[in-house]
């Protein structure tokens, strides 16, 4: 749905995007993560037709964002990092104006605005002035505006910034709902736990380029089942007593490598399927090792982010 190939964008000699590549499939809720100044907002603006690229190509739904801007605008809903509102309008007037700006026929405008108000939970505030809304409500209003023309792709640049925890929970639920409706969503955020909760995949961006984490991945798959037949998995084991006998026992088992050992805990890498893991655990227990805890160790998004960008600050 979104195809960015080797895109380069320069501002006054600085590469905001430098041969950046990204592919987002239809229906995905795709996260974009990187430090400040990494190029996230520039990429969002490029995709929203607000910035032309210097070289490379960016397409949404097969349409070139540089040359087919009008068609792309019909397809895309864009929410900038600092969305503005017309404070002196009422909530309904604000939505009616943008419904007209998106050329929604006058006969349909009322129904479209009513739906947007219901969707955003602002139906009972429709006659209030926008300036009377809280920050979270304004964000909801802007998201409602972004959805007025039924876009197939949503570009959300840091939509959760400044929201209180409750508003963030509501936003996450709304985004999951929109994804379930088939909308492709590209979202950038610094709130990694939010992204980890809702995104299907996350791309790393640093200094305008595709960044790779400590595992060599530039795109992290999160909520897509991925169980290959043969794989290397890491487990953290908590033991009662000395870990040395357990480590010796583990080293003797084929396909198992002890990564760390000491003070009642051990980290091992096990090669193979679930059966191999199960057999290893059985071997430990029958070998007289008292296992308190046996957990798969996966790197969280926050840990991966820290390892990727931590030393670049």
């Amino acid at each position, binding site marked *: 749905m979104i195809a960015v190939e080797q895109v380069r964008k320069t501002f006054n000699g600085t590469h905001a995007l430098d041969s950046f590549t990204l592919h987002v499939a239809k229906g995905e809720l795709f996260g974009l993560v990187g430090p400040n100044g990494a190029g996230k907002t520039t990429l969002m*603006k490029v995709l*929203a*037709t*607000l*910035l032309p690229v210097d070289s490379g190509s960016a397409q949404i739904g097969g349409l070139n964002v540089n040359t087919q801007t*009008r068609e792309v*605008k*019909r397809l*895309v809903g*864009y929410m*900038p990092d*600092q*969305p*503005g*509102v*017309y*404070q*002196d*309008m009422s909530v309904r*007037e604000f939505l009616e*104006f*943008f419904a*007209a*700006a*998106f*050329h929604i026929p006058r006969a349909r405008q009322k129904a479209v605005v009513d739906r947007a108000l219901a969707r955003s939970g602002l139906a009972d505030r429709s006659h209030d002035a926008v300036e009377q809304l809280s920050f979270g409500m304004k964000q909801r209003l*802007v998201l409602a*505006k972004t959805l007025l*023309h039924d876009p197939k792709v949503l570009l959300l640049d840091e939509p959760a910034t400044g929201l209180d925890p409750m508003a963030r929970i509501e936003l996450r639920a709304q985004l999951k709902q929109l994804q379930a409706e088939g909308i492709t969503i590209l979202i950038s955020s610094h709130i990694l736990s939010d992204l980890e909760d809702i995104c299907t995949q996350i791309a790393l961006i640093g200094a305008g380029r595709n960044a790779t984490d400590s595992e060599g991945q530039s795109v992290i798959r999160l909520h897509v089942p991925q169980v290959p037949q043969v794989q290397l998995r890491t487990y953290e084991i908590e033991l009662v007593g000395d870990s040395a006998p357990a480590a010796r026992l583990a080293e003797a088992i084929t396909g198992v490598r002890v990564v760390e050992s000491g003070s009642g805990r051990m980290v091992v890498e096990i090669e193979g399927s679930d059966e191999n893991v199960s057999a290893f655990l059985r071997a430990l227990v029958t070998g007289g090792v008292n296992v308190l805890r046996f957990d798969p160790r996966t790197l969280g998004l926050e840990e991966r982010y820290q390892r990727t960008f931590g030393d670049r600050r």
Partner: protein
Amino acid sequence: MNPMIRKELRQRMRERRGWILPSLYLVVLGAVVAFAYFLTTLDRGKAIVQGSTVGVVMFLTIAYAQLALLLLMAPIFSAGSITIEKEQKTMSALLTSLLTSEQIWWGKFVSSLLFVLLLLVTSLPVLSMAFAFGGIGPWEVFSATITTVIILAFMNSIGLFCSSAFRRSIHATAVSYATVVALGVVTAILFFVRLQLYESGVAHASTGSWESIPLDIRVPMYLNPFFFLTSSFAPPRQLYPAWTTCAGVYLGFGVLAVALTLRNLRRSRDV
């Protein structure tokens, strides 16, 4: 109807200045007219003041005062209208909607022009007082009104250009006012200084008609809005060359300002 026009008019009429400025404008215009009437009819010994003289004086006073006031007000409405979208971060929402740059410009232009035209219309009762005294025909009123509208449309397009070129309303408004001063005052000073130098030259006699003044000395005045208004008081057959030249210059620069504004709007996507 262009949704931008509806939105702009709605927002403008809700602003406090939406009613303060017209009120202030009428008070100032009324005071100027009353002062002109007082001066004209002041007892000058035995001389009897003709009604037509009062009518002409009042008409000219209103026409020039009205133009001066509206020139001062035009930047208030036009120079901030695009920068406000940048300041309140709504520009990207407009540019990612299906509104074209032309529609955005037209919406801003029409709404700001309509507001100054509203002021022009509200002064019609004051202007009609001049009719009561005579000496003024429909042609003079018509040509002066059309000329004022052209000047205001031009100033609006300049104000919108400034608004598209700057990020802050205060900067755009300041440059718009500088343009008003340059056109209304600097051109006149330039013209009179150069004319004085020309006439004081040994080889030259005093200039009789407008056409006898060398073109390079006359040129700045074709940009002067008060000269443009003055040239509109000529009978229809004498509008050429002064009025038509002024109209051409205003139209040319106005179109240039529109083209540059549209270019800036397309480039201002990085907001």
